[in-house]
């Protein structure tokens, strides 16, 4: 096992898929000669050249739509958005074209595209650059949404996303790009729609995705040490398709659940999960299903204060104790 950063693991996954399939082409702002705004694609242009790594102008609607058109004809474009917040510029292309063209053509067309980039707050860049649209895009049948929390997951999932024949929205996190994890040396794939129990426990279930998984793991350590509560942390990894069974199995074991995510609360991923758990595991619950999200306002800039807008271990611990 090598110790790789999240960005290195992603890069390794992209590199392997570029080698495996000639139809894979990476397009986006600064992905080639600049080596990537967040250096995810560093070195790939030098290795693969102008045909496979393509810098685009700042035209998110135009180039995302171009990628969708190319995918309709059989390419497997991997489109980088410098921030997922910029997807709002390309929203029509993503939802109406990538998301609906298969359906509207009665299944005659499919769009094997991956759109990837960071989708997170917490970096003091203001509301316009801090959106977390996983709930918005998972609300569109036809799209798939993936949110890896670790380097190993990022690599295994990006490879699967590229091979998937449907449009996959792949949401990363700038705060994780430099974090290191052990990553298997041999080739591996992680299926979409398969959650991962990142920490087994018997007393309480925390359900999370993306960076909130790490917040939950920190909270779980302290809950064990300070309160003798044995917490299970379920990492969804993919929002749509959703691994309901792993979530429900955990709740049936622990009888208590808190959904933690950096999404906004109203109509967020937490709302969907809370509904799912109460509907399908109601008789197993000993307490109401709790939710923790980003504080319900646009992302504040002020560096110290923004930290408090996102879920942190303190808020998770406080809520868990309330529900116990």
């Amino acid at each position, binding site marked *: 096992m090598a110790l790789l950063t999240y960005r290195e693991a992603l890069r390794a996954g992209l590199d392997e898929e570029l080698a495996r399939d000639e139809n894979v082409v990476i397009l986006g702002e600064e992905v080639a000669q600049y080596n990537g705004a967040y250096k995810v694609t560093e070195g790939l242009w030098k290795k693969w050249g102008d045909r496979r790594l393509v810098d685009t102008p700042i035209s998110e*609607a135009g180039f995302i*739509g171009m990628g969708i058109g190319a995918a309709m004809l059989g390419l497997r474009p991997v489109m980088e958005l410098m921030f997922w917040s910029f997807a709002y510029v390309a929203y029509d292309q993503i939802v109406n074209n990538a998301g609906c063209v298969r359906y*509207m*053509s*009665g299944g005659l067309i*499919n769009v*094997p595209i991956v759109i990837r980039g960071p989708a997170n707050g917490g970096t003091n860049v203001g509301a316009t650059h801090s959106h977390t649209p996983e709930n918005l895009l998972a609300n569109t049948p036809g799209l798939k949404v993936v949110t890896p929390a670790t380097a190993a997951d990022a690599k295994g999932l990006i490879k*699967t996303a590229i091979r998937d024949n449907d449009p996959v929205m792949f949401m990363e996190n700038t705060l994780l790009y430099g974090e290191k994890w052990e990553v298997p040396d041999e080739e591996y794939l992680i299926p979409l729609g398969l959650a991962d129990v990142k920490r087994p426990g018997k007393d309480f279930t925390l359900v999370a995705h993306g960076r909130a998984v790490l917040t939950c793991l920190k909270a779980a350590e302290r809950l064990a040490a300070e309160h003798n509560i044995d917490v299970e942390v379920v990492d969804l990894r993919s929002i749509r398709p959703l*691994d309901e069974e792993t979530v429900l199995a955990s709740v049936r074991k622990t009888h208590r659940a808190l959904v933690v995510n950096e999404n906004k609360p109203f109509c967020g991923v937490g709302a969907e999960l809370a509904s799912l758990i109460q*509907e399908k595991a109601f008789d197993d619950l000993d307490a109401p299903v709790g939710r923790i999200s980003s504080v319900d306002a646009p992302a504040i800039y002020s560096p110290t204060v923004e930290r408090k807008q996102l879920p942190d271990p303190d808020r998770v611990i406080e809520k868990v104790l309330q529900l116990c």
Partner: protein
Amino acid sequence: MNTLVDTPALADAAINRGLKKEEKVRFLRDMCRIRRFEQTSLKYYNLGKMGGFLHLYTGQEAVAVGTISLLGPNDHVITAYRDHGHALAVGMTMEECMAELFGRATGCSKGKGGSMHFFAPDKRYWGGHGIVAGQTPLGTGIAYALKYKSIKGCCLCYLGDGAINQGTFHESLNLAGLFQLPVVYVIENNGYSMGTSLKRSSAVRDNLAQRAEGYNIAWDVFKGEDLYEVRAKTQEAVQRARERSEPSILEIQTYRYYGHSVADANAKKYRTPEEIERYKTEHDPIQIWRRHLQDEGLIAEADYEEIDRQAKYEANQAVQFAEESPLPAEADIMKDVYYEVDHQTEASRQGTHFFNS
């Protein structure tokens, strides 16, 4: 019909000179088929047999038939929501198109797309798109894929004059000019973006294609009522795309006899009845082409009438086919969402894809 006087040289253009009688008659038949299809669909729309919108192509037939007649096995077509004419011109059947309008399972999109969303990828026809100019990045991407795969083909990407003010169109032009993509943007300028005339919607008033200059793209403007002219002038752009992988913008001036859609309540208010009548009597593409063929001694009056009669018959047969076809089953709502689910692949077996309670 003084427009005929202008075009004998175009009839003699290289791309037209070699046309056989059968091809010329087929163009007439295809235009008549589009017209009869649209008239018939209007009739049944007004009878309440179909839902949604109905954007008729009537009056613009020589554009779709003329441009698409130039295409070969490596060339592709994508258009907006006024898509019936292009669909028939690429060879889709009246039956599958009419059944789609009737919302039947036998429709080209299994009753899931409707009037604005006809598709036939096997005929390299990629729709049928409802959002104004939303198809222009897709057409650009189809051309991108052709170039990526080193295929000598082109993509004809149609849009209306109302679409030229959308940002995605301008972004597409920049990408096509920058990457030198084999795409031909065909602006079918029928003079009205819904009810707003060009004068009231475009800062550049006389000429829409000239916007190409801002993106270093070749352009041309011409009339769309004479199939010879449409073919001769479009051919240059098609060649430019296929042989040099360069984009073009063509503005083809045309006219729609009906409103923006059949639901356009003001269709006769923003233009005068005289204007519509003048187009029908002086600029009708079918009558102009018919006159050519009669002047060239290729058909007689009776031949035209027979062709038109057959087109009408075919349209009525298509209605019968549609009416006798089953509706999609309720279970069909859940099909054709995800490729992996439809094909029951390994990927489809992991996780929940649908959230119906």
